[in-house]
């Protein structure tokens, strides 16, 4: 099966004064549809940069990035926005919900940008919220929800477009351990249902939920660990 995501010789170079800083220094990664991958590494290892590039929020300075056959490294801002909308569901550490909107409206948001008709939007947003167990909280605003519930709304928002991958950046970082467990269980369920999940974490036991863990150090892949139980 061809890889869904394919990064070759990806470098991200930042110019700091006269010095070139290699945030990523030649990364080769292939991810197939349906995989459950985690990315680990200490801060400064290039984790976030890799995450941003995979999430099409940023483009590599050098190298190629193909997503489902599309050359992401050649895209402009608006094309990136479009591929993010169609193919990627983000789950952030800080939830990043819009505080003034209800859970339903938050989840509906990506579908607005996907130009989905209103009635279908609301239907799909409701379904997504039910999927994460928040069917009874759809008209609550984020500040009326607990941290775990907020993150579930965020997951619903990521799911609602039926994306090719779900990109979770430290999804349990701001949660107590009980909520964290709950969120990981949802992500594991989503994987079982066939979703491709990429998880970024610095906690080994969170990263261990994945089938395969990529360890980054100084902008390079240090090693890859396959978790036999899950694979």
């Amino acid at each position, binding site marked *: 099966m061809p890889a869904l995501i394919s990064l070759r010789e990806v470098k991200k170079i930042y110019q700091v004064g006269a010095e070139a800083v290699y945030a990523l220094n030649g990364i080769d990664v292939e991810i197939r549809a349906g995989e459950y991958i985690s990315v680990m590494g200490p801060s400064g290892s290039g984790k976030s940069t890799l995450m*941003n590039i995979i*999430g099409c*929020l*940023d483009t590599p300075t050098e190298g190629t990035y193909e997503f489902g056959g599309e050359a992401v490294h050649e895209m402009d*801002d*608006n094309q990136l*926005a*479009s591929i*993010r*909308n*169609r193919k990627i569901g*983000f789950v*952030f550490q800080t939830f*990043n*919900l*819009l505080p*003034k909107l209800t859970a339903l409206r938050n989840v509906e*948001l*990506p579908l*607005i*940008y*996907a*130009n989905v*008709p*209103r009635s279908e939007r609301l239907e799909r947003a409701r379904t997504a919220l039910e999927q994460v167990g928040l069917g009874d909280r759809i008209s609550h605003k984020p500040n009326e929800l607990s941290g775990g519930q907020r993150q579930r709304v965020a997951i619903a*928002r990521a799911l609602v*477009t039926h994306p090719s991958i779900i990109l979770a950046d430290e999804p349990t970082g701001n949660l107590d351990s009980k909520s964290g467990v709950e969120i990981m269980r949802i992500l594991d369920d989503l994987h079982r249902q066939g979703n491709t999940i990429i998880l970024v974490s610095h906690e080994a036991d969170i990263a261990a939920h994945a089938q395969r863990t990529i360890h980054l150090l100084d902008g390079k892949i240090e090693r890859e660990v396959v978790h036999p139980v899950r694979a």
Partner: protein
Amino acid sequence: MLSLLWETVRIAFQGILDNKSRAFLTMLGIVIGVLAVTLMGTLISGLDRSFERSMAFLGKDVLFISKYEWFSDRDWWEMANRPEMRAEYAEQLKAYSDVVVAATPIMSRGVDVKRNDNSVLGVRLRGTTPEYLQTSFMNVGHGRFFTEGENHSGSRVAVIGHDIAEGLFPNENPLGKKFRIEGIPFRVIGTIDKQGKFLGLFSMDNQIIIPFGSFTRLFARRGFMEIDVKVAGNVAEARDEVRGVMRRIRGLRPLEEDNFAINQQEAFESQYRSIKLAIGGTGVFITVLSLVVGGIGIMNIMFVSVKERTREIGVRKAIGATQPLILGQFLLEAVFICLLAGLIGLGLAYGGSRLIDKFVFPSTMPLWLGALSVFLSVGVGILSGIAPSFTAARQNPIEALRYE
């Protein structure tokens, strides 16, 4: 695409609702601007209307000859030292010129009038001839004007204005009744229909007209006199001819200056045009000023709003909002604020114009001006929103998401 536009509208509107008081304060400049331009327009429309009505008292084809020019740079004392008009000029003007259709001398003074217990003070008493009917635009509604015979014999008959009739003869028909002008008894032979005020200043209903002969005999042999001349044909040419005749009557040599003035309605019109220009100019100045200040205020607020919502912009971009959509969202928000402000201004102006209509003078708010002001508001919204909106649209999503 339409649904996306509608959603953008909703998002923008939500943005305003979330910051009601701030949006309101921001709107003030625009509100004032719209208010200024529309009220100014209403005022001018009202002035136009009352001016036109006042001008109807004068008549385009009537020349008013006297010592004084109505609007002039000449010193007042210079004109005051000119020789007085004489009643015989009227006959002479008619005799010497074909274009003069009617000519009548008019003398006037302020008097008090009385009947039994009723009195009216500060009445304008005019002494003139029956030809006054042709040079003026009043209508003797009841009774009649005096005749040539009554004029010659100096009869004590009077045609009275509407206010006098009401003041001296409440609840009765004044025709044939006697009253006293400065103690001298006169008989009412006609009443003039209500005319209103001239330029909103002098009441035309507060006058009494008596025969010229009676006026000179009873009140003043000499004094300020005006000669009203109705002319035929082209008014400008007729005016030149009348001027020539007047110079001949006065025996002026070719190089001597005129020692009389020929006034006409036109003088009021040019004077009025400059007043109108001043009012309009002031209105436009206030409008432009407040729109500029309002626009800068809105730009400022929009920059603050973009800064505050950096994170929101990041989230929206991450989940797929393109640059044009973010641009549209903030631009529409600015336009909405301005549009709302424009409509509020328009509403207030409409109320204001109704008040002016009711209490100051009849006027209406010109519709095109209302439309223009709303249009202007939208323009200000776009102009002041464009820079902040571009800032928002160009945000880097990674940095925006990281923004605290």
